[in-house]
């Protein structure tokens, strides 16, 4: 854990130094600007420049990181006293599968739409990480995005990404036209019926 503490603080110190440099940067279009010119406290009598506040905040971050590194070397902070690894085998695997799953989820959103990506992610998580029965995994990963679709796209008209054009044309346009014509009662019934299906499947898979 101590090594991770020092490496992380070192990387954060580097990042802080970059932020300090970045704070002194001028607009891209201004070729005559002199670096650091906007970090002054009272520029031409009009108060601090736009880089003043971020520069000193980044300096504060940098000093904090150096302090953290010194504490870690002197074994003063709990992580630097801990003999446990930063991440054990389980934690690494978990981060790879869950974090990787999340990144995959985000990539899929642009390709196959938000709701289809939710279905894939839910199925992946329940089936492969949760080891739930196939039937329950399939039903849950269909019902949850369906509920969210009804809630966001239909009831609240907060439209979510629909993926590639042909997916939108083939699925979402007709589905949207159909559900928007329905009364609120029908929509509530849709929630209830799919909820009942989910509850029955969950009960059956517990047995």
């Amino acid at each position, binding site marked *: 854990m101590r090594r991770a503490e020092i490496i992380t603080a070192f990387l954060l110190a580097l990042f802080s130094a970059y932020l300090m440099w970045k704070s002194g940067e001028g607009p891209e279009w201004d070729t005559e600007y002199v670096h650091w010119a906007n970090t002054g406290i009272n520029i031409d009598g009009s108060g601090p420049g736009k880089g003043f506040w971020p520069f000193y905040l980044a300096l504060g971050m940098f000093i904090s990181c150096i302090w953290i590194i010194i504490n870690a070397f002197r074994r003063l902070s709990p992580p630097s006293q801990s003999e446990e690894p930063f991440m054990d085998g389980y934690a690494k695997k978990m981060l790879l599968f*869950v974090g990787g799953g999340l990144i995959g989820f985000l990539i899929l959103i642009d390709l196959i739409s938000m709701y289809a990506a939710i279905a894939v992610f839910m199925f992946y998580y329940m089936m492969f990480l949760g080891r739930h029965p196939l039937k329950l995994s399939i039903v849950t990963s269909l019902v949850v995005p369906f509920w969210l679709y009804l809630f966001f796209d239909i009831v609240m008209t907060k439209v979510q990404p629909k993926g590639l054009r042909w997916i939108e044309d083939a699925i979402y346009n007709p589905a949207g036209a159909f559900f928007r014509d329905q009364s609120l009662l029908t929509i509530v019934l849709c929630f209830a019926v799919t909820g009942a299906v989910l509850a029955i499947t969950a009960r059956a898979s517990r047995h």
Partner: protein
Amino acid sequence: MDIFAQFFDVLPALQQGIWVAVQPHNLALAVIGVIVGLFVGALPGLGSVNGVAILLPFTFVINEATPDPASPMIFLAAIYYGAMYGGAISSITLGIPGASTAVATTFDGRPMALQGNADRALVTAAIASFVGGTIATLFFTVFAPALSSVALDFGNPEIFALMLLAFATFIGLGGDDIPKTMFSIFFGLLLATVGFDTISGEPRLIFFNEREQTAVLEALGSTDAASSVPIFNSVGWFSRGIQFLVLAIGVYGIGEMLWTINESRYKVTMTETKISASRIMRGIVGMKDAWKGTAIGSLLGFFVGILPAAGATPGSLMSYGVSKMTSRDPKSYGQGNPDGVAAPEAANNSASTGAMLPMMTLGIPGSPTTAVLLAGMVIWGLEPGPRLFEDRPEFVWPLIGSFYISNIVAVLVNLAFIPLFLAVLRMPFTILAPVIFVLSIIGTYAAYDNMYDVWLMVLFGLGAYMLRILDYPLAPAVLAVVLGGTAEQKLRQSLLLSDGDFAIFYSPFFDRDGKGQEWWIAPITTWIAVILIALPIVVWGIRKMRGQTAADV
């Protein structure tokens, strides 16, 4: 006695507020909010801040759909209350706190459950929460208008000094590693500066912009770097700034979840809990054994809750400590004493109302949850601060009215649905976790209609998880990103007024307006902040000296 005279003055407004709060749509929102809050609070790893942050995007819709400006806030405040009640359910039945605010509840709640008295512990927790919440709401009604009328005279230096004080309390009283707390505060404030500078109107901190991309490509040996850029749309990612919810949902929706999965490894065991109407009645009658803890928690919780950086978690732990210290039988604490359940539970509800006080009257939140609520208010077009009570009474009083109503709703729903909550707690974490991830992602997209924010949110979440393992406190960063924009604006306007002289913050004799007037509030606040920042160093120095003296002897 002025303050009590003021209380009677506000009674008609409060009455009107309660009337609005019990309108069917607001009552329905309060009931739904409380139920959601109870679930969120009861589920291990999720607390009020997670619930409020993840569900904040949903309130934009409520804001558009309802006629009352207070409706979205009534919903979120109900979640906040519900979560405070809910935390006790898992503390008692699972032995792991549903939220950090319910940590102290496990000390006696778990032993009570193991002795077969889980139902009594649950009822005690619910009633103590109700009493704590109601007493705190009464205090809020008395103090809030008075404090806001004082705060009306605050200028830029005063407000900046108060913000400094809020951050100083994190360093002085937060109890976390000092350099890491400082890093977290500076980082949060810095994130708030990304995008456009509101004063000069120029872009700043647009990371990996075209100039940097060209430089990197040239360093890599590209001969035609200028025509290859942009390879990364830095303007798209950063020109709109880092949205507050992106950090809050990243930290509390993704980071905390990953951490909880790693800690619990999907495994929790629940004690057998028998519950029935007669057992609930027996619990209510048994409250007479827990009145002292309830009273201590209700009073102490409120005042600890007001302090920035303190909030419900230290409030509940302190109340447990004081209750134990003043008990005739302190040894019974930790063995299943009902007072040990009542004190922290009354305190966390009381503190959550207390934390609303500086948020509503000064515009300075005291806890991450109130920071999210404050950000929500800004998004709905309200300006939190002393003027709120004068300018927007149609928002303030229904909200305060809803505090009373939400407390009643919460205790009733809690008692009525204990069996349901117990059933939900049996739900495997491997179903809950992906649902939380999905809500975080779809909620962020719904809030900003932009995939860049969703990507940033997930990246922040992964980063927050790593930093959490290394004990970096992240609540200060969340608070800082909310306050960052205002803090910078107040600082720069103050320095503009003083021609760059920092004396405007620390000297009462600094002549602001050329009339020779003395200004005491900002200097007093600044010096308290300085003392708080210096406090850990002084304590460390005293300890070291004592240690050396002992060694010398």
